[in-house]
């Protein structure tokens, strides 16, 4: 195994500052409620949540890399494991498991056993198309884009919509090498 890094985010999670889980859950619930009131269209709200997550992810990746002290990931498989074991643990306090790799190793599913965002939440009948935790998709997409990977993250299973667990699909679209804004001959 080439990487020497933390096998899980427990140690880091123990050292970061924490916030009350109910405050976090209720705040997120209030955000979703307000978006629904302002935008009124469920698809628009899904897009907004993803965009918010993207903005969070682009900033979160720096904190993650600074605190997690891990070395460079060799391939996408390692990246996914890092996100599931270290990333989720550090920021949400839960671990995810990575399953369902495809043959090329560019697409996998992450299953979350618990999800603190959705405590107490029940979707009303008027909002059945809503992906309540769409912000998580945006966070992963934004964070990976900052480390040169263009990905597509979608929800496969969602407990609030009747399934039995939370499952995300992370698909690597392409690796974008760093582009420098200046020409070589200057």
């Amino acid at each position, binding site marked *: 195994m080439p990487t020497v890094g933390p096998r899980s985010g427990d140690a880091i999670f123990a050292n970061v500052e924490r916030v009350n889980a*109910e405050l976090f*859950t*209720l705040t997120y*619930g*209030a955000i*979703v*409620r307000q978006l629904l009131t302002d935008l009124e269209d469920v698809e628009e709200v899904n897009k907004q949540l993803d965009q918010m997550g993207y903005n969070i992810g682009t900033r979160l990746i720096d904190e993650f890399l600074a605190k997690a002290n891990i070395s460079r990931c060799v391939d996408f498989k390692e990246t996914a494991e890092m996100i599931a074991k270290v990333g989720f643990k550090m920021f949400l306090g839960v671990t995810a498991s990575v399953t369902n790799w495809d043959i090329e190793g560019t697409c996998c599913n992450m299953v979350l056993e618990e999800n603190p965002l959705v*405590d*107490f*939440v*029940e*979707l*009303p009948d008027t*909002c059945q198309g809503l992906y309540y935790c769409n912000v998580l998709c945006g966070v992963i997409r934004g964070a990976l884009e900052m480390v040169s990977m263009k990905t597509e993250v979608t929800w496969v299973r969602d407990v609030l919509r009747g399934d039995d667990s939370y499952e995300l699909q992370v698909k690597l679209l392409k690796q974008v090498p760093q582009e420098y804004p200046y020409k070589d001959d200057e």
Partner: protein
Amino acid sequence: MIVCIAVVGHQNNPLYIQSFTEADDALKLHHIVHCSLDVVDERVNNPKKSGPLLNETFLGLLYPTENYKVYGYLTNTKVKFILVTTDLDVKDADVRNFFRRFHAAYVDAVSNPFHVPGKKITSRTFAERVSTIVKAFGLSSAG
């Protein structure tokens, strides 16, 4: 056994009413709950001078009528829980325990961001939890 439980808001608006018998006398149960609200208001406005410690939450037996007993519980936000039971030998501790669990279920239902305070509680999880608590109450007092 418990025949009916009700959650009434601070403006005496009904938030949740569930009866656990055949629906024939549902109207009568609603009427009993409605009448008991007056007793609650009376207890709240004229606190008994006896007893230095005024535990305001559990109101106790509100009034016995025909073959029913009505118990009341008041939360700090003036939300009232009314319990109607046909049991004749119900222990005080059992009822307190019931209301404590019922209060916990109510708090979880109200924490749902999609719940509008003041509107009826439409949560299916809440309904299921309440049925479980009612069944547990029936078993504990029968045994």
